């Protein structure tokens, strides 16, 4: 093993994020209390710089560092999603941290490190790298979930996330160890080559594929491995919940697609039907249980489970079009869900007050602008035509039907109707109930406004003119 040519450009976004993260952390003690939010803007600038550095990265396609690191369109598109998620999360958190008197800029460092971990996951061509990326992401996110140290709910959320996260990591590791034993390599392409030859112990490989699948299903929160999600999402600080519901999920799916479609396509008959059942179960459970949730964060947690189910439908299609639809959906879902969580952040008060759906009563008459934006996100999550959610679902069901998964598509659309019930019930509260709050102390500062504008514009753009992005995801689809 020799470290081949060092190519800085190929890892530039990750490098930028890590360096900015360290700078923010080191600079913290030297910055006065009043200027701490400037470090937030610095972190935001870091994500923008990383986004810019995607350009030189995209010009260095290929495998680097002894085939550990791969740069392709798939990677670039996912990196773009991750950096967008990080940028919007930073914008949403600034005011939140000030309000909760938690203005510790480590938060931004952790966020940047977590994002760096996600970038590593998307770019890794090697299971060891996947594991490292996953852990960098997870460890940072555990801390972020428990960031409201004095609050028991936040502690509980962090603890549960930590226990189940490391539990599933152990499964992932065991799967890697077994596949290493069976094929003699942890490189995805080498594994794929080895699996095509006949001298492989197929039972060992299947077991390891199953363990890796279970571990990643934990990470992306699909049924039946979703039980931790609602508690963790409810207790974590709201912007972190928003981040967790899109970031690790997208990264988990990125790895799921990469590992299973690169390394394990030859044993698809062994995992294909498992994905089918996971997708169906996830869509049904997520949507049905979301209907009865009084807490909006919990409701959105179940809705995020349901959306993971839709992405799993695209996965079950196991086609280029499926991957492209999934990538599109991940972007669409990230935008609209982050928008929804930004809105929850705005409406909620200190220490997670006013996070029940009924607390939104009368928002439509008191703050029509905010209500209209939240309605947009809710309708998009439900999948009304003209919004990103519909375009995404349309592409997913199209891919599913192309792969002849008729029943999965039917389950998908029928559960979508169920989802209308709980998304519209937020709208019912906002427009059709009498207000019992003036919403007078709802502040809308610049950074939050910026976050809302980005997500709302993105939601509409992807809904009305999806062609350009869809073409991008089509070239980015693996294989």
């Amino acid at each position, binding site marked *: 093993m020799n470290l081949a040519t060092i190519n800085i450009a190929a890892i530039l976004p990750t490098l930028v994020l890590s360096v900015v993260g360290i700078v923010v952390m080191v600079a913290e003690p030297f910055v006065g209390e009043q200027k701490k939010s400037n470090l937030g803007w610095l972190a935001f600038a870091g994500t923008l710089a990383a986004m810019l550095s995607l350009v030189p990265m995209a010009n260095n396609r290929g495998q680097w560092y002894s085939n550990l690191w791969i740069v392709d369109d798939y990677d670039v598109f996912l990196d773009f999603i991750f950096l967008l998620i990080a940028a919007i999360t930073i914008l949403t958190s600034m005011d939140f941290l000030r309000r909760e008197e938690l203005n510790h800029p480590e938060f931004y460092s952790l966020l940047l490190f977590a994002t760096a971990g996600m970038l590593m996951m998307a770019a890794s061509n090697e299971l060891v790298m996947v594991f490292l990326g996953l852990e960098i992401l997870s460890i940072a996110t555990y801390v972020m979930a428990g960031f409201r140290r004095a609050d028991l709910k936040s502690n509980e959320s962090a603890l549960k996330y930590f226990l189940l996260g490391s539990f599933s990591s152990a499964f992932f590791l065991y799967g890697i160890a077994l596949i290493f034993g069976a094929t003699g390599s942890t490189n995805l392409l080498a594994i794929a080559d080895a699996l095509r030859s006949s001298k492989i112990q197929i039972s060992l490989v299947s077991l390891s594929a199953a363990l890796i699948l279970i571990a990643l299903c934990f990470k992306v929160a699909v049924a039946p491995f979703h039980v931790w999600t609602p508690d963790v999402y409810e207790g974590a600080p709201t912007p972190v919940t928003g981040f967790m519901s899109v970031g690790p999920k997208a990264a988990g799916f990125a790895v799921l697609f990469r590992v299973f479609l690169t390394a394990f396509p030859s044993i698809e008959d062994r995992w*294909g*039907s498992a994905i*089918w*059942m996971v997708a169906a179960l996830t869509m049904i459970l997520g949507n049905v249980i979301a209907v009865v949730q009084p807490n909006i964060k919990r409701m959105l947690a179940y809705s995020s489970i349901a959306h993971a189910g839709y992405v799993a439908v695209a996965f*079950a299609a196991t086609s280029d079009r499926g991957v492209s639809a999934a990538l599109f959906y991940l972007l669409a879902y990230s935008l609209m869900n982050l928008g929804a969580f930004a809105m929850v952040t705005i409406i909620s008060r200190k220490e997670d007050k006013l996070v029940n759906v009924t607390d939104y009563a009368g928002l*439509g*008459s008191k703050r*029509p602008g905010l209500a209209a934006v939240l309605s947009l996100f809710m*309708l998009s999550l439900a999948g*009304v*035509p*003209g919004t990103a959610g*519909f375009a995404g679902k*349309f592409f997913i*069901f*199209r891919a599913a*039907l*192309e*792969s*002849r*998964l*008729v*029943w*999965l*598509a*039917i389950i998908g*659309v*029928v559960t*979508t*109707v169920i989802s*209308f*019930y709980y998304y*519209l*019930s937020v*709208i*019912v509260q906002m*427009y*059709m109930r009498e207000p019992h709050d003036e919403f007078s102390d709802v502040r809308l500062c610049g950074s939050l406004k910026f976050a809302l504008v980005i997500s709302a514009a993105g939601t509409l753009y992807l809904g009305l003119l*999806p*062609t350009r992005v*869809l*073409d991008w995801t*089509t070239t980015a689809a693996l294989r």
Partner: protein
Amino acid sequence: MFSRPKHMEFVGSNILTIVTFTPAAGALLILFYNRAHARSIRTFALIITLLAFVFSLYLVARFDSSNPDFQFGVRVPWMPSLGIDYSMGVDGISLFLILLTTLLTPLAILASSSINDRLREYFIFMLLLESGMIGVFASLDFFLFYVFWEVMLIPMYFLIGVWGGERRIYAAMKFVLYTMIGSVLMLVAIIALYFIHGNATGTFTFSYPQIQSALASGRLVLSPAIELWLFVAFFLAFAIKVPLFPFHTWLPDAHVEAPTAGSVLLAGVLLKMGTYGLVRFSLPLFPHISHLFAPLISMLAVVGIIYGALVAMVQPDMKKLVAYSSVSHLGFIVLGIFSFTIQGLEGAIYQMLNHGISTGALFLLVGVIYDRRHTRLIEEFGGLANRMPVYATFFLIVTLSSIGLPGLNGFVGEFLVLLGTFGVNHIRAAVAALGVILSAVYMLWMYQRVMWGRVENDRNASLADLAGRERAMLVPILIMIFWMGMYSSYFLRPMDASVMKLLNQTQAGRVEYARDLNTFLSAQRRARSASPIGRSLKTRSASPIGRSLKTRSASPIGRSLKSGCAGSQQAGGADEVVRSALHVFAELTTPALQPFLRLRPIGLALRPAVAPPLLCEEGNVLASK
């Protein structure tokens, strides 16, 4: 000859876009109004809808009645990589439905004077709703159609949910969820049709004319099982919207809770989308299955006619009475559509317009009295004719039009529908005619209880007669009632060409199918003894289904289908209708259910090898793809 100026050409080629999006543009502009200026918002909304009406008159003026194809077409690529276009066009079937929409919306806006709460949002939703409704009638691309079909739900949801009555939230939610459950399955069917068409012809497109012509010309042939499932998915969406008899339960709730303007548009236009969808999509795309299911659907329609009328008769609430009368009237429309005769179809389309106008007017009139008394209970009124003579006169004319008095619009439509149905099946027509009588009973009885007699209730003693605004919204309707009753040919003539074309397409399909079904039946009979499936069917012959399948060839439907080539469909009484429908269903689902029996966990094959082993022996067109 002089050449037309440039701007006229622009208008001519984009007129549909202009008509469709004028209200939406108006909605955007209302956003910039100060919410305090209630009066100017009202005026502005009215002007915008009148503008849309004027633009739609251009459609009528320039419409070429002899041309059966789509006119005023626009086609701009929207998502080219997916074969999705922004594509619109109008033919004789949709022309007057668009006009109906643009006519009823300004009237509905005039009827909104009692709305004072959140006025700006109210008019924004009204205008968006109008855009959505016109878009549904004008779009020629499946994707675009679906977008309008769904998007239009949202403003209606808000109109019912925010400005509705007591149980408005329940009604709004029920409305959305009911409509949604049908239409999402239609989306699956649309995507499936897209792939089937694309795989068969090589061009992946959502364009309705392209797919339709591929089907008509035989370049694309659907196997019976696929056609069945696609038909069912489309039909469910439309049947819920219509609403056909067992799917109607959302309608009374939505109507009763909606504000007056919402009820007018709901009854006047939204329900027509279901019947329009049946005419536009179900019939020409799936002619074989439409023919096979016609007895069953007609039976549901007849049940709906009688059921709606009977339930309407016992309603204490005027609005609910009108809502149930809609169920009855829509039954007529569906009956006419599935008679597959030119009279029946034209009558059905005519009846769509009539029902839009008469029922819209009835809701407006009920709204007038509700604004004054804040009740709609029939028992609260009595003797209104003494206090409000003009109102009573208007009400009488609309009532008579709704009943179908000769000389008024309702008569023409109902007569044509009954005429068309009578040629096909006497009993159905006779039972449906009973519905006409029942409608006279409940409408006149309500009129009598509300208008005649002495004023018993003191609160009715000082009611004011119609104000200028109210007359303004009712007079256009009265004009239409008389005009459509007297000069029906003015409206029927533009439909002729398009309806004939539609009928030719479905008729051609029907003859072909009858031929195919015979070969299909004989092939299956022969194969059944040989193939494993056949064996399994044979071993089930002890069960009632098995028996019915075996005796099928001797059953009336077998006969009627065979004689279907001759073109007459003289199936007997009601029980025969049921039996025939069951037979048809058993016949068709047997191949269709095969994939389910072989269901792998990974999912069901989209185009299951639908009994091709059986069909290919004969080189049957049905199986050849």
